[in-house]
């Protein structure tokens, strides 16, 4: 399992590991978090009325790690002291498998919950990760919006959702 807070991995995600990564602060003198909020995204068995058989995730791995790091910096800019861990799995995933895991550590719970929500919204917007859905009767690439980390409207929308 990856030791880094930002990882793209072929193996199963371990949420407990992410919690450790945001709880044990290596930097001397830093404040220990009083709260950790977590998110786990799972492969659904149905999508747009289709019965999903499995998913194949693909990433530009180096760019994805940088995107995760950028999201961490954005979050810290808004909630000072927040620390994020973001891991995404790639390869073939079965129904119920975790595809993305996020942990947000903060001094207090309000910031931890908000930063966690912000992180998943931003992952969906700017992480270079693609999902190929194999369903009963066919297969399809799932595509959303063009990834643009500098799109301020998208970032504002992620912040709005985080603070709703």
């Amino acid at each position: 399992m990856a030791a880094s807070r930002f990882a793209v991995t072929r193996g199963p995600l371990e949420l407990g590991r992410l919690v450790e990564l945001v709880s044990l602060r290596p930097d001397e003198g830093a404040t220990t978090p009083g709260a950790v909020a977590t998110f786990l995204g799972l492969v659904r068995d149905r999508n747009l009325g289709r019965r999903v058989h499995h998913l194949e995730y693909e990433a530009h791995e180096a760019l994805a790690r940088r995107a995760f790091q950028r999201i961490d910096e954005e979050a810290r800019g808004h909630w000072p002291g927040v620390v994020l861990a973001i891991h995404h799995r790639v390869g073939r995933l079965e129904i119920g498998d975790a595809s993305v895991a996020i942990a947000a550590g903060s001094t207090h719970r309000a910031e931890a919950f908000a930063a966690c929500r912000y992180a998943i919204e931003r992952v969906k917007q700017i992480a270079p990760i693609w999902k190929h859905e194999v369903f009963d009767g066919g297969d399809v690439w799932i595509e959303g919006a063009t990834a643009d980390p500098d799109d301020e409207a998208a970032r504002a929308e992620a912040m709005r959702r985080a603070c709703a």
Partner: protein
Amino acid sequence: MRVRIRLFARLRDLAGAEELARDAAAGATVADVWAALVREYPALEPHGRTVSAAVNDDYAPMRRLVEDGDEVAFLPPVSGGRR
């Protein structure tokens, strides 16, 4: 000069190629690299409006100048998901 091109997801499927090495003229931009690619693989043409790019593992605008040895990645819209 020579650049390395990487294609992902649907773009890779359409071109039937994952990694390519191609010549580019001095002063070429990412957009020029894409245009040359579309001439070679016309199936990519409709995706020019939604493609984004990364140079050497960092997001880059299409107007960015490329340099010899650069890795230019073309990315279809990411999987997103509104809910």
